[in-house]
């Protein structure tokens, strides 16, 4: 509908949900809190890629990222009725994911040396068929810092606007912007050194 309006040159209705970005309506949480299953499904469909991408930036590997994704959604179901609307639904969801990831690291580190465990984790992305695509993802997860990973994956992969990324991560916008561009540059150099071709 919006499309037609724009093509025909009529004033388009205000498009609050700017490009790509999953727009969670805060009232979804109230509905989830009241046990509405459709609301939960809607929430899941809206956020799964964003949440997965962010989880991946936290835990580096598919298996754990899936765990975080799932646990986060279950937490949302368990706590949705407690949610206080503050205009930043995505921030809440991402914070849950981050807290879960950190508590997982703490648990893991009690068992084994956490860092070595994480480093040894095979970055198992065998489901990515294209070897170069896989290499780019693996590089991003290895050479970027945690913040850089989060910023790149949220924006480049999940299409979240820089401003929203800043808001959701509680970082100044300028930090997010410069981290984003620095991270892309770093990746670019790294991949060029390894001769990853530009086009498929």
């Amino acid at each position, binding site marked *: 509908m919006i499309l037609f309006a724009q093509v025909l040159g009529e004033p388009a209705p205000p498009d609050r949900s700017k490009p790509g970005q999953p727009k969670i309506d805060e009232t979804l949480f109230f509905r989830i809190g009241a046990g509405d299953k459709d609301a939960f499904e809607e929430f899941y469909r809206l956020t799964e890629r964003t949440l997965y*991408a962010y989880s991946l930036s936290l835990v580096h590997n598919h298996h754990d990222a899936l765990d975080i994704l799932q646990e986060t959604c279950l937490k949302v179901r368990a706590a949705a009725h407690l949610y206080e609307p503050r205009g930043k639904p995505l921030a809440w969801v991402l914070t849950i994911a981050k807290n879960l990831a950190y508590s997982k690291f703490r648990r893991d580190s009690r068992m084994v040396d956490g860092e070595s465990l994480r480093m040894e984790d095979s970055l198992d992305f065998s489901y990515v068929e294209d070897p170069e695509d896989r290499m780019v993802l693996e590089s991003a997860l290895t050479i970027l810092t945690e913040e850089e990973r989060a910023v790149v994956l949220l924006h480049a992969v999940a299409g979240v606007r820089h401003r929203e990324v800043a808001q959701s991560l509680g970082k100044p916008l300028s930090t997010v912007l410069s981290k984003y561009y620095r991270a892309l540059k770093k990746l670019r150099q790294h991949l060029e050194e390894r001769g990853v071709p530009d086009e498929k």
Partner: protein
Amino acid sequence: MKNRTIKERLRRAVQAAPLDVFDKMKDMPVERMEVHDAITRQEPGKRKRASRSKPLGMSVAAASLALAFSLGWFLQYRTVDTLVYLDLNPSIQLAANRRDQVIGLEALNGEGARLVERVEYRRKTLAQVTGELLDILLLEGWIDSDNHTLLLSVRNKDQARGEERTKALNQVIGGVLRENRIDPVVLRQTMVEESDTVREFARTYGVSPGRMTFIRNLILLDPELAVEELAGLSLEGLLRLSKEQGLDIHSIVEWDEEEWDGSDSDRDEDDSDDGSAGAPGPAPAAPQRIGAEAARRIALGLADARIVDLELEEDDGVWYYEIDMEGGGFEYEIEIHAYTGEVLKFEKEEDD
């Protein structure tokens, strides 16, 4: 290798991940939590910092109570909690304590100085003082139906508190101006802090740190821009420039664009952009970028899909907008020449 390729590859790799957890999880029983735990807690406001330790004995308690009292008083009333920069062409800074009472009002440039003198701010709230400032700005002709762009920057260490205030003040501004039949364009940014560099540059160029933050973010979006060039521009000028340069300004400030589109005289220019863009004509005398909005419209004309990403990119000296779209089961990758509007690349792929 282009940034775009990196993003595409990353996106494809992440899209390929099988996420089959929904069915497993949708009926999984969960226990409704009574209260938030450490995991689900919403960012704790910094309001409840006051210590709640139990008193050791009566005298200690009394002493610490007195101390806490005076300290509390000091924190509540004397300490700056929120800083507000209001920029039109006059630049004004308001400081408020935790209770939103204004405890300081300063002009950051000569134009602001005369205004500030006329406002008695003591014992008034941020909203009240902002409203009074606007009345004077209207009276003095700084704001009218042609000049209605404002930059509202709110600085608070607690981002949530900052955002609440941004929202509230935006409503105040909108309210006062609409009463006067002016539809304002309020650019809004909430900051947690500003760097020394920003402050220094702001001082050098005689603008508010809020406006300098906006300028710095514009430069981060487009490294071709220079501070000297931007600092001298009015807000309308900055908006027009970023539009011409095709910067996705939404990614750095909040604003309600329909206000600008609906009421601004630039509208006509914009439409001609669109026309020349549809059929790439001769380059204008002074080359100007077609702008993000025009690029957006060209892209929307090419496919029945929604835009998921738009960025200005440069490759071997060629500037272009790369636009990604999704819709009807397809993904599109489009590149539009930033100066001619020519479609450099159009790829359609089945969405998986």
